[in-house]
């Protein structure tokens, strides 16, 4: 299994006070390379944009160097993949790049907090919320 972590999970994990919340555990897992996850150039760029989003930046208080350090620490553990062109019937075409990344992965799972994406996921894809993803990780690590 290899995960695609939506940027909303990244932000929520960074700003959530509870270390044991699913989003916090996922972000910590990315930083510690505890599971496999994939990124595309477009997703890395989005990670950068969400961390610089004014309301988010005000809360974490990082300068550009710290944002770059954080992203470097995460991306270092990721697998950089090429998106694959796919046709996806979802309401918002701006979300398609996530499925294009997912389509190029064997046993890929998109992890998102976006209920619209969870409800509209194409049949060929696997899209789960943060809590369900942790359940999958625990299941896959069982002997």
């Amino acid at each position, binding site marked *: 299994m290899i995960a695609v972590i939506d940027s909303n999970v990244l932000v929520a994990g960074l700003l959530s006070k509870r270390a044991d919340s699913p989003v916090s555990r996922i972000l910590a897992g990315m930083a510690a390379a505890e599971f496999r996850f994939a990124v595309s150039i477009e997703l890395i760029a989005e990670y950068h*944009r969400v961390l610089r*989003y004014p309301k988010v930046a005000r809360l974490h208080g990082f300068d550009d160097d710290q944002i770059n350090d954080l992203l470097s620490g995460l991306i*270092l553990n990721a697998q950089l993949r090429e998106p694959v062109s796919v046709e996806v019937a979802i309401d918002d075409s701006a979300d398609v790049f996530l499925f294009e990344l997912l389509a190029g992965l064997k046993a890929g799972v998109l992890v998102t907090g976006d209920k619209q994406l969870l409800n509209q996921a194409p049949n060929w894809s696997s899209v789960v919320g943060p809590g369900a993803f942790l359940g999958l990780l625990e299941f896959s690590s069982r002997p």
Partner: protein
Amino acid sequence: MALKQAAAERGKTMGEIIEESLEHYGVKTRVEAAALIALARERAGLDEDQAMHLGLEASRAARQKTN
């Protein structure tokens, strides 16, 4: 030339020096990332629902969503 000299001084190949540097960089960035995450969580102090609400807002803004 600096890399070649460093390799000669330490009795290692240039490849080994590069590998060591990358490993050092990786360890350093992992430690830094974990420390930054802890700092941000302490500063922000949001509950999980608030944090996800803001995460969704930031994602939508990044994708220039209007809905």
